[in-house]
Structure formats: C-alpha cells, structure tokens
C-alpha cells in the first residue's frame, strides 16, 4: 500500500470553496424560490448575489488554472470509455464484491462516468446557471433593449430554477458516489481533504491504470 498525491492544494481549495459557495447558493436560492423561509427574501437575495460573485471569481481562477496546467484534459472523454461497464458495476458488481472497473491515478483522477457527470455539470448546468443568473440580475439593463423583445423574465427564471434542481440532483449523486469511489468508503473524501489516496492496487486495477496511461 502506498500513498499518492491525487489532488493538488489548489484543487482542494477550489473544491471546498466551491462546495461552500454552491451549498450557500442553493440554500438562499431555494428560499427565494419560496420553498421555505429562513433569512427572508431580501437577505437571501443579497447573500445569493455575494456568493454568486464569489463563485464567478473562483471559477475564473479555476479556468485559468486548468488551462495553464493542462488539467482540463481530465474532463476529456477517454478513447475507450467503458461507461456501460461502470454503470453495470454500480448496478450489480458493487453488491457482489467485484473489483472496480477503474482506478484513480493523478493522470486520470476521474472514472469515465465521473468525467461525464462533471462535464454535464461544468458544461451544461453551471453555464445555464451563470448565464440565466446574470441575465436575471441585470434584467433592468438589457430588458429595455433588443433582447427584451425576445426574452421573457419568467423564461430565464425557469431556466435558472430548472438548472438549480439539476444541480441539486447532481450534488446528491456526487456526494453519494464519492463514497463508492475508493476503499474504504471514505477514501475519496480523505483524498479530497488531504490530497492523498491510499493505493491498494489489484492486478486488474494495475491493468486499468496502464491502459489509462497509454491513452494519454
């Protein structure tokens, strides 16, 4: 058994800052949506905006970091992505004690299903939230001009709320799946906090790792 560094310090900071901001945004957002009463609309709204701008800044850094380090490749689809085998594993193999059909390495931190989920989050859900959120915030600025004739406030709100629900579903899946990605069950969480993962390599795991490396 050996310890390898999976996540850099920046990734750890980025992940947890993002987690806090997103949970805050969900909490204040669903209050504004009218799902419950907690801070009151005005405080919820103000908090929501502050958190949103915080997240924008964080994302700006993160995008820069990904571009500079080349880590953006982590989200690219591997050539022989065996998503079906991973789904089969979660549906069946995980219960019968099969080995995971993937392994985590610094070069391939995410299994193909994870990659797909993160790409959906970062490529679809988050941009939908950003764009609709900024449109909502600056509604008064653009509404009087050209787009106002084609865009209804309620449509943008609908997109924002739909994307927020998608984010909540993603979050539930994400948190649970984190508990399935390593052994012991909290291994992935441990890695996300410390940056290190304890590697217990099995032959098949080793095989997978080699394959992943070959793909790069």
């Amino acid at each position, binding site marked *: 058994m050996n310890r390898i560094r999976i996540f850099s310090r920046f990734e750890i900071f980025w992940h947890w800052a993002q987690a806090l901001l997103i949970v805050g945004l969900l909490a204040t957002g669903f209050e504004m949506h009218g799902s419950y009463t907690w801070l009151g609309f005005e405080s919820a709204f103000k908090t929501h905006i502050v958190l949103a701008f915080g997240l924008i800044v964080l994302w700006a850094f993160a995008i820069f970091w990904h571009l500079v380090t080349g880590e953006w490749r982590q989200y690219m689809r591997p050539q022989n992505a065996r998503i079906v085998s991973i789904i089969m594993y979660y549906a069946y193999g995980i219960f019968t004690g099969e080995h995971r059909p993937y392994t985590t390495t610094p070069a391939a931190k995410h299994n193909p299903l994870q990659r797909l989920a993160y790409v959906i989050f970062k490529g679809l859900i988050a941009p939908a939230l950003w764009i609709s959120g900024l449109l909502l915030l600056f509604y008064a600025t653009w509404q009087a001009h050209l787009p106002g004739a084609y865009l209804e406030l309620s449509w943008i709100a609908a997109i924002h709320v739909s994307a927020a629900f998608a984010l909540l*579903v993603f979050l539930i899946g994400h948190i649970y799946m984190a508990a399935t990605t390593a052994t012991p069950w909290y291994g992935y969480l441990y890695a996300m906090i410390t940056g290190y993962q304890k590697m217990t390599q099995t032959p098949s795991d080793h095989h997978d790792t080699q394959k992943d490396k070959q793909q790069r």
Partner: protein
Amino acid sequence: MQQRSCLIAGLILFTTICGAIRFAHMMIYSTNACIHRRWLFAVLLFFIMMLPLAAQALAQSTADHRKFEQLQGPFASGPEVTQACLSCHTEAALQVHQSIHWTWSFDHPATGQRLGKRHALNNLCLGLANNYPRCTSCHIGYGFADASFDLTAQDKVDCLICHDTTGTYFKFPTGAGHPPYEDTLFRGKRLQAPDLAHVAQHVGPSSRQSCGACHFEGGGGDAIKHGDLDSSLIAPPVSVDVHMSPDSLNFSCSTCHEFTGHIQEGSRYLLRARPTAGIAVPGRDNERPACESCHGVAPHVPGIHNKLNEHARIIACQTCHIPEIARGGLPTKTRWDWSTAGQRDAQGRPINEMQEGRVYYDGMKGHFSWDQAYAPDYFWFDGSMRYTLLDEPIDPQHVVDVNYPLGDFASPDVRIWPFKIMYGRQPFDAVNQTLVVAQLFGSDPNAYWQGYDWVRAIDSGMREAKALGQVRHAFSGTYGFVETRTYWPASHMVAPAADALPCEACHQRNGRLSGLPGVYIPGQHRYALISTVGWFLVFVSLLGVILHGTMRYILHVRKQRSTGGV
C-alpha cells in the same frame, strides 16, 4: 404661521413692557438686589430664547394685512371680502377662474371625456346634478346654488377658504359655498359665524388645514373618500407622513402641489404615472407633485444589486412607500350600499345604527363598511383615469367600474400603483342600462332625503344632467341597483423608508401584486411543472442513493460475518 407670529410678537412686547416696568421699579425702590437680579436674568433668558423665533416671524411676509384700510371691515358677506382682496390682487380672481378648483370641469386629453366635479360620477354621493348647495359647500366660490351660477363673476371667488390662517373660517355645509353669517345650528351642532374682518386681516398661504377643510372631508366627512387624505394629516406623526409631519419637514400640500397663478400641479384625472424628467431644477420639465421631482429617478442607495432603483422603473414609489390605505388612525369608507337606504322610525326620521363606533347604517344613505390600515389593491396605471359616464351603457350583471385606471403592462409609461377600491351598490336606469345621478339634497319633495322616493330623486337628477348636456336620454322611470367600484390612487400618507414594504411583501407565495398580469415575481410566481418535476427528481435521487447505500451496507455486513465465520 401668521397666527403664531402675532402671538410671539405679542408675547415679546408684553414681556418687554413687564420687564421694563419691573426694572424701573427695582432701580427706584430696590432693597433686595438678589431678587432683582433673578428677575433681570429671567427676562434676558426669555429674550434670548425668543430671538430665533422672532427672526423667523419677521421673514414671512412683506405685507401685514392688519394694516390694510380695505380689510378693516365690517364685512356683511364673503363677496364683500373678495372685492376688498381684488382691490390690490387685481388678477387673482381671473387666475382662479382658470383653475379646476373653480371650473369643476376637466377635459381629459387622452380619453376626450369631460370630467371634473360637475360631470364625473362616483359611488359615494353619485354626482353633482341638482345637489348643488350641499356639494358646492366645497366649491371655492360663493353661491354655486344651481347651474345658472355665473362662473365669470370675480367677486364670487372665495379667497378666504384657502388663505384663512385663523382656523375660524369655514363654509356652511349646505350654504352653496357661503360661510354662516350668523351662528347657525347644523345637525344639532352650533356653528359659529366667522368674524370676516378678522379672517381677512389674517390671510396667508394655504396650509394642510385649509386644503384639508375640503380634501379631507370628501364623501361627506373625515377620511371617507380617498383613504389617503384625512384630518390625521393636519399634524401627522412622522410614521404617518414623512414629509408633512411637524416633527420632520412640515410640508404643506402646496409644497408638492405647487401653485403658479392659482393653478396647482397635480390631478387625479391625469397624472404622471412614470415621471422621467428627474429633479425639478429650472429648465427641466416640472413634474410636481411627483416624488421624482425632489428625489430623482434613482433615489435608493444602489448597494450590491440596485434592484430598488430598477423596481422604480415599473413600480410607482407609492406602491412600497404607502404600505397601507388609511394609515392615520381614521377608518375610510370601503363600501356604500344605497339599496338599503330609506328606513325610518315611527316619526319618519332616518334610522342610524352604529357598530364598533362607526356608522354601519344610515337611513338616509344605506349600509356602510369601513376599514383602516389595510393593504391597497394594485394596478398598472398610465396616469389617465377613465369614467363610466351617464351616457355609456353598462352591464348590470357585472360589477360596473364607475372609474378605472387606464393602462396595462404592455402600455408605454405605465407603472404599478396602489389604489383604494371603493365598493358600492347604487341606483341605475334599468331600461336604458346606464348609471344615474339622483337629487339627494334639497328642501323640495324630489330630494331623496325629503321624499325617500328614488324615482322622483333620479328623475330630478337626470333632468338636470340632460339640461347640462351630460346625457341625451331621460330617465326611464324604472331603476335598479348595481354593484360598482371606484378606484382612488394612493399618493399621500407616505411612510418613512423604514416603514415601507419589505421585499417579502410581494416576493412570497400569495404576496401582494398577486393576480396582477404581466409580472413574474420570484418567490411568488413559479412554473408548477418545473417545481414538481424538480422535487420529484430530487426525491428519486435521494431514494436511489439511500437504497443503493443500504444494500451496500447490508451486503458488506453479511460479507464480514461470513468472512468472520471462516
């Protein structure tokens, strides 16, 4: 103000004389210097305290009307006073003649309707026709007793009703605009005739009290009609009116309703629903009495989102800053049901019933409902008020809007405004299907309050309306009662910012503005499908991970047991 100045001047004079006598006395007969020094100190202190007030008193006017020979009186009637006024203020009456306060007529430029008190209807006392002497006790003239009143007569302008500062001048309730010239009983109350010469010598600018004498009493008594104008505004606490309170800015009505040549800014028939010119500095369009004329179009501190200023684009200032109708502690009338009027006791006197200290039933007028400090109704408003006049057909199966604000969310220059809705049940012509006016007041048997006969009262009112050209047809002779509404935009009793509506007032389920078309209010509105599907998916995900996790756990425990067994 003038009254106070006189009082202060008198006090100063009195104190000076007293002080001087006492000082002289002391100088001549003094034996105890200590007591005298105390006296001297007290007098000096009083003078020092009075100095700022005296300076203020001096700054008010360039004319002391007590010194005018023309105003020494005695005056036998109001018009005599007016003639005296006009001997110096030569153009004043001609200016007043141009004012809606005098003409009681307004040609609406947007709807083409002829409105004003002479033509418009409502669901309180219905309309002016043949009720002159009662209604015209609020006309700024003398003797508007019937339609033949000469609207070009200069000496018939009542200067005192606006310019009295003594608070003793008033128009007799049924005097067609005249004050009582001798002490008179009215409804069991002794009304003291004003001393016209005294009033004439103490004229000054209009005040909350002088404007309020009519505008607070609309609909037949204090607070009845408007819902945002009542006698609580004579000396309101800051919480009731942030501008008019003597404890804050002490504005009079004309501070915002600026008068130029006796013509005021502001109208309820045609107002600026969305002022855009900004602060009214010289050279700009003066949009007074709009809030924006002093506060500008972006009065809120932007903070991190500037949403309040952005709201002001579609929401009138009044909507948040006048959180309730009738905030001054006096109830306003919310419903007037004429259909039950006419119940009298054995002596033929109309019956009165009280409930919770309010008139619930009046044999002369029917049933009433009252309310205070309640949420207004909100509508898109472009500033133009349209009326259902006597010659317009109505559908008595539905509630008839006797007046209603024009504009919807798609109209240009509309904003959401707060309104008091006055509900009514009033007589209509059941054959011609139109609203009617009725002669309520008068000493002849046609008057409803004499004969209690709707047919005669309506016939008399409609004959007058026809004579005035307001309607072509005559009353059919058959009447019914129809449910009606009138809309009164709220613009007064402006709360301080701390008492304005919070965001949650609208941004919550079933909050204010619910049912208003053309708005999507986050927190209040939502797409039910998105929420339903969204929560369903969240539920399914949660259920999925819980089941998956539980199965994993169970299998894990089993496996451990079996390994442990081996």
